[in-house]
């Protein structure tokens, strides 16, 4: 697995499991879960600093920037203007030019507003951002995002936090055949088999948050996800057997009594 690196916009990543940092009990649990997951890319959200209570600790104290690529997202942004503003603030805070771009279309489903996403991506790419767009499992939109300069595409498996798993594996398969940039399946994973399936389909990586942070034992689930992503990747590269309706004997007939 060690020489099987994921490369996006010239950056090399060891792990094909990317993780979010939300919904954990505390920063200690966050840190332990991330370590158990083996991830080297972690997403963070951009928010106001609490100026009334400065006693609260900072997430960045627990994430060594030398060890992890910090990927700011524009979660919670419902307009192009907001998403662009949050991305610019994230870059100004001095982490990097990377942004996981989200333009959310609806509060109930948190599905992406893909028209807004393309518009915001165009603006940010022109400003030199490396835009990783959170999008629908729509091959046409994925192609448009690549055409305007996104170095990777992040289609959802199912709604954010839903744990429904991969609802449309065929669309993901078409996306994987349509665009020739890394595909990171983002959102909707519920358990380890979902992550393995995404990788078996040929996804280049999987990003998740709730499936780990919301598990009864987040640290154990983080470890499970690490194995699932590795197993799925190996199975994809090894090449699965074709599905057949009837049996094919594994033991030879020859030599039977």
């Amino acid at each position: 697995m060690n020489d099987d690196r994921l490369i996006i916009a010239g950056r090399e990543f060891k792990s094909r499991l990317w993780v979010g940092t939300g919904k954990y009990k505390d920063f200690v649990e966050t840190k332990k879960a991330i370590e158990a997951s083996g991830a080297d890319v972690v997403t963070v959200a951009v928010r106001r600093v609490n100026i009334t209570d400065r006693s609260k600790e900072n997430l960045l104290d627990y994430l060594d920037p030398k060890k992890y690529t910090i990927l700011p997202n524009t979660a919670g942004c419902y307009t192009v203007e907001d998403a662009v503003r949050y991305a610019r603030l994230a870059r100004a805070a001095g982490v990097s030019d990377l942004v996981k771009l989200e333009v959310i279309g609806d509060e109930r489903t948190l599905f992406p507003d893909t028209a807004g996403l393309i518009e915001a991506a165009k603006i940010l790419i022109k400003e030199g951002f490396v835009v990783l767009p959170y999008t629908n499992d729509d091959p046409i939109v994925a192609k448009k995002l690549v055409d305007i300069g996104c170095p990777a595409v992040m289609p959802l498996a199912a709604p954010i936090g839903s744990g429904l798993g991969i609802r449309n594996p065929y669309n993901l398969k078409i996306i994987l055949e349509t665009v020739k940039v890394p595909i990171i399946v983002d959102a909707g994973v519920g358990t380890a088999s979902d992550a393995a399936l995404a990788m078996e389909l040929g996804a280049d990586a999987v990003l998740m948050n709730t499936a780990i942070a919301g598990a009864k034992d987040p640290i154990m689930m983080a470890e499970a996800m690490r194995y699932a992503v590795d197993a799925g990747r190996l199975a994809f590269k090894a090449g699965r057997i074709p599905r057949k309706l009837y049996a094919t004997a594994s033991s030879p007939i020859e030599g039977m009594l």
Partner: protein
Amino acid sequence: MTQCFHVLVNGESRECKAGETVSDLLRELDIRPDRVAVEVNLEILDKGAFGTRGLKDGDRIEIISFIGGGSLPINKYRDVT
């Protein structure tokens, strides 16, 4: 007597003294400048400008940082750093 005026910092009113800069404000609030971005009246400042950018009456200042996040609606995620 030192002249005082008011600015809005992350939506809250705050009294400032004449000549106060963004750097002074961050110091008073005990915020490390390397971890944050600062926006004054919707203009994002370079970190290099923190020490020279003076504050004026009515300035709307936003100080942002990073918090734990996958994806959640903004209204459920107000609790910061």
